[in-house]
Structure formats: C-alpha cells, structure tokens
C-alpha cells in the first residue's frame, strides 16, 4: 500500500492553511463592496483545495476518485444557479 508524504510536509501544509486563515480574517477587515463574497469564497476554495489535495490524499488517487470528488461541485453549481434563476426571474415575489 502506498505511503503518503512526510510528517514535515503535512505540518508545512498546515502552516500554509493557517496563513490563508489569517488572510481570510484580514481581507474581511476591508470593504471591497460587491467583491466581498467572491474574495472570501476564492480564499476558502484555495483552503478547501489544499485540504482535499494533500490531507485527503487526492493527489495519490486515480481518475475515478477525482470524478467522485469534483462532480458534486458541478451539482452544487446547478442547485444554486437554477434556484437563483427561478427566484430572481419571477415577476411577483
């Protein structure tokens, strides 16, 4: 069975996640107007990606696992975008 990285690299990845958490809290102190949510989501997605890729060993997984891991993101996009399209295209709310 395969062996995954070293303890040191795991700790480095954690330090990087801590750094991104500081950035998240720091960025929230400034008002970017309409970009507030996209910036927060962008940083959160980098963190989520790092956790999935390194901690959840996605970098060692095969193509099928990658499909299982990424297709729900597409479904989530459909869920939110279609609900939003419905809600905001109604004449009477």
């Amino acid at each position, binding site marked *: 069975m395969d062996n995954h990285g070293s303890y040191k690299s795991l700790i480095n990845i954690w330090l990087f996640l*801590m750094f991104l958490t500081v950035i998240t809290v720091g960025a*929230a102190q400034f008002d970017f107007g309409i970009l507030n949510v996209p910036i*927060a989501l962008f940083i*959160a997605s980098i*963190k989520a990606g790092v956790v999935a890729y390194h*901690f959840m060993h996605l970098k060692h997984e095969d193509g099928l696992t990658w499909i299982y891991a990424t297709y*729900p*993101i597409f479904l989530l996009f459909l869920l939110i975008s279609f609900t939003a399209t419905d809600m905001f295209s109604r004449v009477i709310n």
Partner: protein
Amino acid sequence: MGIFAITGKIIKSIAYPSEMVPSIEEDDGHHHFDPVTEHESAKLGMWLFLATELLLFGGLFAAYAIYRAKYPEMFMDGSKSLDVVLGSVNTVILIFSSLTVAIAVKAIQENRIRLVKVMLWVTIICAAIFAVNKYFEYTYKFSKGIFPGTDIFYSIYFAATGVHMLHVFIGMAVLGILLRKVYKGKYNKENYTAIEIGGLYWHLVDLIWIYLFPLLYLVG
C-alpha cells in the same frame, strides 16, 4: 448490467444478506477477496458519501445565496453580531484537528501505533473544544433573545452551524470507535482502511467549516 438487475441485487442483498456477503467471523479487516480492491472500493464509497454530504449542505448554501441577495442589510447586521474571535479560534482548532488526523493516517501506515493513539486523542479533544466554544456562542445568542426563528439570517446561521455541529459529534463518535479499536490492536500498516476513510469524513467536517466561517462570520 441493467437498472433492474442492480435493483434486484440490492433487494436480494437486503432480504438475504447472508447469501450476498461473505460471512465474517471476526472483524480482522481482511474479509474481502482482495485487500487492495477492498481498500480502494472503501475509499471510493467514502468519496461518494462525501458527495452526498456536500449536497446536504448545498441546500443551505443555496438558501444563503438567495436570501443574502434579497436581504443584504439583514445579513450585514446578523454577520456583525457574530463573535469573529470565537469563530476564528474554532477555525484554527478545526484545521489543526485535520492535521492531527492526517498525521494519524500517516502514522498507521508506518505502524507507529503510539503516535496514532496520541493523534486521535488530540483530534477528539479538538472536536470537544470546538463543541464547547459553539455551546458558549449559542447560549450567548439565546441570552440576548436571538433564536433560530428571529430572522432569516439566524435561521440559516443556526441551521448551517447546527447541521455542521451534528457532523462534529458524529465525527467524534467515529474517531472514538477507531481509537478503541486501535487500543485493541485491530489496525496496522497492512490494515488501516477504516482509519483512512474515518479521516476523510473528519476532513469533510473541516472543509464545510472552511466555507461556513467566512460566509457567516466575516462577509458582513
């Protein structure tokens, strides 16, 4: 295989479980024909389960997106009333517990049982601290007369963090069972599938929080 054949197999496996599943005398982890295939299938099954978990929270994220667009002021005020310090502390705790689980998985692959025990204990303690912080947050809100029904923001806040909290408790239970079996000497570098997929579940709890924290506490 057609859809009917698959449905038939599933019904048959529910009705006659003993015929479908090879009998398991003792949970030694090696009850599949091929251990490598078992390891891979178990992981794939866990990823599929995590996909359904993401969509469970997806409904809440959709509700958040729509009501935030409709009532931005309500979300501004609600978000400002949340305790950013406690939220940040909980974020740090949860990401640290993700690291300890990752180390536990790494350690069991190298047969370092003592390290696995320590790391699983630390993870469970982190989860407990997270729960205590959340308890103080909730009771503080209740004392100020803020409840899930106060307005839509708090409905979403309590629903999202509540469902997440449920996952923390389930994660603690899963890790606790794994830890008990580690003490019984059930796992080693040849047989660690349960710890790896239990770890995957715990990482999902972390992943969900990574999104909940900025969306609820910070984006005001």
